[in-house]
């Protein structure tokens, strides 16, 4: 009887810990994404000896729908990417045609950066596709944080074996993310900083992705503008709108 009690107590506390962790991730995700959002950002690819900069405008509705428009450099301006569920299209203005992309392209690097297509168009949901567990408390950049372990669920379309996320206790800010492969090797580290008010929310405006293999390499995303819970419906995410958005 005692054993059963103890076992159920342990199970129960595991369950609450998991629920708390999932709840923190849900709140953090909700804050960064909203139900829907529009964004304007620049992405800098930094390498020893050279840098490249890409201008991006984005529209998103949940994790199912997103549309990305390249605004700079001139060479790629007007190129757009549409994602609906698991389907992805690419609009090429120079040839006046939209091209259906193979699903395998999701895991590929986004325009030579340290982000994959999946990171950008968010094929997977950090809330739905992972199970979460609080590992402990720590401090990141002066913020008291929860250290949360995220393990992908079995059928989730996720390349990582494990993800560690550090979320501030106050304001639910995601400040640090470590991505591990299936053999538990650290692959990428994402550092968030420059916390400020964007679109009426306190969020990190700067994200830096640093590959573990080449610590002097990095890709920096800077949010210039964001609006949350904007009135866009799923009809907005159409192949005809890929060529119409500005």
């Amino acid at each position, binding site marked *: 009887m005692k054993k059963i009690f103890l076992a159920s107590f342990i199970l129960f506390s595991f369950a609450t810990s998991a629920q708390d962790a999932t709840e923190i991730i849900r709140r953090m995700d909700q804050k960064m994404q909203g139900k829907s959002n529009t964004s304007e950002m620049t992405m800098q690819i930094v390498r020893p000896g050279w840098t*490249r900069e890409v201008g991006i405008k984005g529209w998103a509705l949940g994790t199912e729908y997103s549309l990305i428009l390249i605004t700079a450099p*001139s060479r790629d301006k007007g190129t757009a990417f549409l994602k609906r569920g698991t389907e992805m299209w690419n609009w090429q203005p120079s040839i006046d045609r939209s091209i259906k992309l193979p699903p395998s392209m999701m895991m590929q690097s986004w325009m030579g950066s340290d982000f994959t297509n999946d990171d950008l168009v968010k094929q997977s949901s950090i809330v739905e596709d992972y199970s979460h567990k609080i590992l402990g408390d720590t401090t990141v950049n002066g913020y008291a944080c929860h250290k949360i372990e995220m393990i992908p669920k079995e059928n989730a379309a996720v390349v990582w074996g494990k993800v560690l996320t550090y979320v501030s206790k106050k304001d639910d800010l995601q400040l640090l993310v470590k991505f591990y492969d299936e053999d538990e090797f650290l692959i990428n580290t994402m550092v968030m900083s420059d916390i400020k008010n964007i679109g009426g929310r306190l969020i990190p405006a700067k994200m830096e992705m640093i590959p573990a293999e080449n610590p002097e390499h990095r890709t920096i995303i800077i949010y210039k503008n964001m609006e949350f819970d904007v009135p866009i419906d799923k009809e907005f995410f*159409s192949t005809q709108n890929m060529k119409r958005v500005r």
Partner: protein
Amino acid sequence: MKLRVKLILLIIAVNLPLLVFSQQLEEPSKWQINGYLKEMVTIIKSDSVLVDNLIHHRLNLEWTPNEHFSVNLGMRNRIFTGDLVQAIPGYSSFVDTNNDYFDFSWNSVDRKKVVVNSVFDRAYIEWRNDEWEIRAGRQRVNWGTNVVWNPNDLFNAYSFFDFDYEERPGSDAIRVTRYFGFASSLEIAATYADNMDDMVAAAMWKFNKKGYDVQLISGIAQGDFTAGIGWAGNVGLAGFKGEITYFTPYEQRVGGETSIAGSVGLDYSFSNSFYLMGSYLYNSNAFGQLNLLGGGNMLSAKNLMPYEHSIFLQGSYPIHPLVNLGVGTMAFPGENSYFVNPSVSVSIVDNLDLGIFSQIILDDPNGTLESTLKMFFARLKWSF
């Protein structure tokens, strides 16, 4: 001297809108201007070696006074110099080709050593709302869905070999599109022509089902009744695309035969960005010869390749984030003939790209396989 002045004037004239409007960047929404300037050296090695140079300028202008209306102009200016220009009699008229009804192409300089050609290959107005889109004028009606070969592309079929003209010539046409959903539409388009045999008029119905984009087309195309189907979906993680088009002459005529052209292709992108693509084209109407030098303009969807069976395999890999290597190979079962197309592209700085390409034909005129034609291209492209 006079020629030099003419060239400078031409370059100033075509860039004038850019100089004027670049001062109005605060309001980019109504005017969009972009384009590129390319400098390309071509070396052709056959029995002899010919070296040519091409300066290629493109300007796209879009005026959108409100969300429902836009005017688009696309201009292409090319300055040809070199051995081929001098060696081919009538090179200037070869350059000054016009597939379309209205002649918007002209040679402003036509000398023995230099030819300057200008063409408006886009000139259209568009009206649109959420559901409708009406476009009239010279435009690209791109109905292709597969990579490499597009038998569904009735309006502007193009040659794979003409790699330096990705925009492709336009058609003088009117096109009406009604959108029904995120990837569903009915489109009707017709080219302007004096008689029915020169005309292309067709409808396309597009829809999305179970992860597949499907299109059904039907109409008339240069003397044929035509019907076709195209699709783009995936098998596992690989892209699976295809197009089949059936042509049958609507009246008896010389050389008029019922024919079928069809292509299928698979492509896959590995997580390290290695991209692999394979495509097959069947062409029951095959005639002619493999022609790298300018067969592109007069091509039709009915005869994309001169052989009954064509296979294309292509791989590309970024050996460096700024350097992409690629190689494509075409084989023609039943013909002992191959086409090889290696390429390197380098991003030098933002908006400045270097491309080095080669097109090689391997043939067996004397019983052993040898390269009968080699072409090398080095191209600098500045986009603005």
